[in-house]
């Protein structure tokens, strides 16, 4: 069953189209990566999924029910953090979790709250006011609020914002745990593709409000489509030599440098061929990752 089913939603703010005819669906139990640069329309889309913004057109269904008509009932099953971890500075971490437990129909016990604090690593600071928290701690508390009522769908908008490398790794592990161990559906957005590619099974990339790519992470990360960026002392001479070689067909028509697309296992041969052709190599960098793909598609659509 599709947990999220979005059909051609658009959102206009005056003459600006923030989201343009976007459609996608998220299946139960999957980690869905929602990628886009800052200002690409990710947050607007997420806010529409949470009924914070009314779509100008299109429809949204959660758990098979239209969001507009069944808002309250559906939001009961959703936990979310949206962009910045904005909280009440005069309340403690525990008070936040208590307050947001009260709005749920489900009975949430002190033990549940303690477990959530433990889960997000804030047990030792649970009685401190949020105004004393670092950005990373606030972000963790935000995630705690999203998780405290044990929702079926978790929407995380830029969850690693402001976190240190250890914090980023913790969130990654948490997402994986939630999906694999607890069977939750996780919809996670980011502008950092390296984070998403490690956790998401499905990826949707948007740019200027429009879908530019979507699909299985495995397919988008196809090893047969590794991008190799070659830096030389003399690109013109190098290109002449490459055109004469067997790798001429793998050369990408780009003006910002010398790029090849080729299966990953052929990189050593490319390396050898260039050395044999007397090309003055400075650097060979393979970008066989989603990040490269992302940069490519977004720059293409630019």
């Amino acid at each position: 069953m599709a947990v999220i089913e979005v059909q051609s939603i658009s959102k206009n703010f005056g003459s600006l189209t923030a989201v343009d005819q976007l459609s996608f669906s998220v299946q139960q139990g999957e980690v869905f990566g929602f990628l886009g640069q800052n200002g690409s329309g990710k947050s607007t889309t997420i806010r529409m999924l949470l009924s914070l913004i009314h779509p100008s057109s299109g429809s949204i269904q959660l758990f098979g029910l239209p969001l507009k008509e069944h808002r309250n009932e559906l939001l009961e099953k959703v936990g979310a953090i949206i962009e910045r971890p904005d909280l009440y500075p005069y309340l403690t971490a525990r008070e936040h979790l208590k307050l947001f437990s009260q709005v749920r129909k489900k009975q949430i016990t002190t033990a549940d709250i303690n477990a959530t604090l433990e889960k997000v690593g804030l047990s030792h600071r649970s009685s401190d006011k949020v105004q004393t928290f670092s950005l990373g701690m606030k972000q963790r508390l935000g995630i705690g609020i999203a998780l405290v009522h044990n929702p079926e769908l978790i929407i995380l908008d830029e969850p690693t914002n402001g976190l240190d490398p250890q914090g980023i790794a913790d969130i990654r592990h948490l997402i994986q745990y939630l999906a694999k161990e607890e069977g939750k559906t996780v919809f996670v957005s980011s502008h950092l593709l390296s984070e998403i590619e490690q956790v998401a099974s499905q990826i949707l990339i948007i740019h200027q409000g429009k879908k530019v790519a979507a699909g299985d992470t495995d397919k988008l990360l196809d090893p047969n489509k590794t991008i190799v960026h070659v830096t030389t002392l003399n690109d013109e001479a190098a290109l002449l030599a490459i055109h004469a070689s067997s790798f001429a067909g793998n050369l990408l028509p780009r003006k910002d440098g010398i790029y090849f697309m080729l299966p990953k296992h052929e990189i050593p041969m490319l390396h050898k061929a260039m050395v044999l052709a007397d090309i003055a190599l400075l650097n060979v960098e393979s970008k066989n990752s989603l990040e490269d793909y992302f940069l490519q598609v977004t720059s293409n659509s630019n």
Partner: protein
Amino acid sequence: MWKIISIELYKIYKRPRTYIAFGAIAALIVVIQLGLKIDGESYAGFLMKDINDTLTVDGKVLNGYLVCYILLQLLLVHVPLLVALIAADMISGEANLGTLRLIFTTPYSRTQWVMAKFIAASTYTLLLLIWLAFLALFVSMWIFGTDDLFLMKSNYVVLIQGDDVLWRYVGAFIFASFSLLTVTSLGFLMSSMANNSIGPIVGTMSAIVFFTILSTLNIPLFSIIKPYLFTTHMNNWKEFFDLQVDANNEAIKGSILNVAKIKTSLIVLTIHIGLFVAASVLIVKKKDILS
């Protein structure tokens, strides 16, 4: 619904700003009480200058009841500004903080949240008024004692017997609660339209000052709209302290001169509250939460 009302009350209770108004009222009242305790007789003498030319006034004129009246006269003009500090921040403050996103993604509708916030703000307003009543009336009664209320109005004097006063204060405070709830709902309306606190707070204060000026200016042009302005009616709690007189020019104990005026004012204020709150709900419902 009760759950989210209690959440809103809890947030007000926890917020340091809440106590500014309580502190300010206490400070103002104590200062005035102290001033009147020390130099009240000369103040009363000044007020009674015209009367003393003709009559000898025997008794404790400056008693707790009169002090309370003086305090209410001075403070009920300014309390709305303190009320605005909280009411005008209820929605916009959370928009500014970014927490509106948190509460509007819970399984309660925006209408429910807006109503819960209004009820919480109203509770705050009423508590502020009870605090004011306690300090202005009961503490004054304790410090200055009680006697008949010798009330010097602009054009005449009303002498209300001591045992005929307390219920009038009850009425006046109930009336004042309507006045202050009108301010609360106005602040609330302003709050629903903005994403920061300062705008609505200043806006509410400015609106009160602006309409009060319109209400007090005796210019025929404004006379047409005066009856419809909430500021015209806000101070009519004073009507509880005027007596009817019979054919012998004898004041009738337990009477109110102009009951109709009080009723009209309450109706006008209630309509304002209703309109302001309804408009707030509509605005918030239609609003895209971008903060």
